[in-house]
């Protein structure tokens, strides 16, 4: 066990865990966050995506040993029910979910991409989502919400 310090959604936390523990386990178990989810544990589906610094990472395969001092943002760190992030608001406006389990993957991946490159083209957005899954296949609405947000961002 080792102590690690993390800033998660603006709050500092110190946790004492096995250094091989993936970040996702700390977020959902030790910190009881609901945004990032275990989908595959293999970094293949996107459900566990969080933003560390500027980059979207797959928290299910990122060990704590690589993250001491990291600044982590999760889906709930973007916005609240009362004051959603503009992309979350676009998802709400487009009713872009069915079961909703995949939303961390879709939203966090897109936010990170458009933060780094506000002028990202539709093919670039598509490329960044090419390893993100939604098994309810709400693709049409999600892409509509993302387009709406990307256009706002460019404007």
């Amino acid at each position, binding site marked *: *066990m080792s102590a690690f310090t993390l800033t998660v959604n603006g709050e500092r936390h110190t946790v004492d*865990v*096995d250094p*091989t*523990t993936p970040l996702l*386990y700390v977020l*959902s*178990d030790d910190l*009881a*966050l*609901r*945004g*990032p*989810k*275990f*989908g*595959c*544990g*293999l970094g*293949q*589906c996107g*459900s566990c995506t969080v933003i560390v610094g500027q980059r979207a990472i797959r928290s299910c395969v990122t060990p704590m040993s690589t993250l001491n001092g990291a600044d982590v943002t*999760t*889906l*709930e760190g*973007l916005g*609240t*029910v009362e004051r*959603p992030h503009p992309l*979350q*608001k676009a*998802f*709400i406006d487009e*009713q872009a*979910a*069915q*079961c*909703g*389990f995949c*939303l*961390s993957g*879709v*939203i966090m991946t897109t936010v990170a991409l458009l933060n780094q490159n506000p002028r990202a083209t539709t093919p670039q957005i*598509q490329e*960044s*989502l*090419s*390893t*993100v*899954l*939604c*098994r*309810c*296949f*709400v*693709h*049409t*609405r*999600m*892409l509509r919400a993302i387009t709406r947000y990307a256009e706002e961002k460019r404007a």
Partner: protein
Amino acid sequence: MTPPLSRRDFLRTSGALVVSFSSAGALAPFVFPSTSLSAGGQGQFGTRVSHVDPRQLDSWIAVNADGTVTGYTGKCELGQGMLTAQTQLVAEELSVPVERVHIVQCDTDVTPDQGTTSGSQSTPTNFNEANLALAAATAREALLNLASTRLGVPVNRLSADNGAISISGDAAKRVTYGELIGGRKFALTLSRTARRKPAAQWTVLGKPVPRVDMAALATGRFEFVHNVRVPGMLHGQVVRPPSVGATVGGVDDTSVRGLPGVVEVVVRKNFVGVVTEKPWQALQAARALKVQWAAGSKLPAQRDLYDWMRRQPSRDGLVVDSGDVDRTLNGARTVLKATYLHPYQMHASMGTSCAVADVRGDHATVWSPTQSAYPTRSGVALLTGLPLDNVRVVFTRGSGCYGINGADTVSFDAALLSQAVGKPVRIQLTRKDEMAWENYGLAYVIDQRIGLDANGAIIAWDYDAWLPSLGGRPGYDAPGNVITGSLVGFEPAGVSPRATTPPSGTLRNGSNAAPSYVAGCIGTSCAGAGTVKSERVRTHTIRSPFFTGPLRSPSRLQNTFAHECFLDEAAASVKADPIEYRLRHLRDERLMEVIRAAGKAANWEARPSPQSRNTRSGVARGRGVSAVAYEGDNGYVAMVAEIAVDQATGRITVTRLVVAQDCGPISNPDGMKNQIEGGALQGLSRALGEEVTWDDQQVTSIDWRTYHSLTLGFGVPVIESVLINRTDVEATGAGETAITIVAPAIGNAIFDATGVRLRQVPFTAERLRAALG
């Protein structure tokens, strides 16, 4: 097979109900005190008798002291929008704002037993003239009667609005629901004469009300079962067999004794699991645990599956048989013959299945994402040996399931592990454990023959199918139908071979085994959607090497793929336009109308397939149509697909899907569109890439690299929905319609574009390239 008793038939078999209720807490519905009432009998949903009496209004609706309304339902939210739709239903009938209605779903302590949330049955069950709908109408009537007494005017001078009742034309004379009955019970039975609001007066139902859970989902606030945390909770993992049918020879628990956090190694016959303090520790311990396994029997070779299926002993069924099919085919001008093949596919939920169980002493509570709260309760009681009445299952939302994913089995896992340690245990399966052991959607081999007369009309249709089956939903007494129950020694439902018996009664095309184009006659009763009189539909169910179970549009999807492609083959053979040729052989007006509507919306050009412009190089474009009357009469849908085929690579790009749908009165048009769009794309993923694979020992499609689901980046087609809203008929299901007709629409479009007919799903680029030659 015996065509499985259609889910609808099952619902219609009703038996005696036991009247048993007492008043419990102020807001809880009628609940029988916790004593033995698990004996026999059957409820109205093909269910066992439950302690929540569905005939009592208080079992469904409560008006709280603050005037808010609570609805209790046995149909739960699986991502399909049922929570919002049921909220709308109660809000509409009671004239209260949506925000003042709270729905409690599928909790065996307080909600009526409505069996399983499946089979596109939630809308027909709760949105027509019975159950939740009747309860809401009864409550409205009761509130008006109470107000009539209170205000001293007849009911016909009263109107309800915004949670209160006032005298028409004199809004000052007003009484709120809270004042009338808040916090107290109605103590009424459901009134068969209570009338629902006519659809023409709806202001909440029938409208695109936003989903009540959307903001919480989008901002990460929503509590899934994965987020349930109970004080003192431990974490579990299971160790599944390394190959199908392997059995435990021995477990060396010293292999994990030194690992951090290990609390217990649990072994029950072939069920093996570990319990630890933290979830990551559970994974480490499960990996490290040394188990000796005795190998199971070899699996049939995947490349030989379809021939192997034909060779197995089978349970045979006849859905329809006019007795003259061979004779008619012998006399036909032309006979077409083809075999269609469909692979095993899986639910492959986005999140692996998770449950939390708290089994202490002689009581158990399980937080479960199951579609079947009451049956799961019964299964947990059987597995733990606890009295049924001491087990509570609280439905808590999981990842979208699309049928029986790992939700039931993981609930059993959690209960077994918790019972072993006497503390609450949470378990979320690994991706491999989810995918390697779930109850797969059925593989199918379908032989068909069509006879054509001199005018090109179909005069005979012969259908012969082989399908594998093992296990399924556990129901109330068969926990062995899923892996966990089977590992602890409960037998899964298998297949006892049996020769066929002639069909009787009236055709209920619950599995869509009979093509839409046949007359569906049994004796003098003809219930088919079509006109072809010489008809035979035979099925042969064999024992599956893998667990099987309902996967969104079970059997209906596989059958419709075969029917709708083969119909197109017949149309092409006589150079007929595929839409005109369909209409020529149909008589069901609702089915015909959705086909016309889809064609119109897609600007369908009437001409035979394949299109004539094609040369065997470059990109070829084409369009295809398909349609179905889902389960015979539970939703009508047609689709036009437009595609492009890169003939060098065999790669298919779907550019546009136009869907026309008639599901009776629409509860929420945006919710229905969401289901159409999701169903269409899930159907596309299943048509283009999804297939369960295995070697001689075990399943090898165990993650997202080996099981191919279309990602968010795949190049999504335009989807256009045409909703036909009929308020003069009963509401039907809408969750399994669009998905049923995607593969044939794409298959027919491939043929239209290239002249090549693919008769095997999935339509991979390799398969199409090989067929293009």
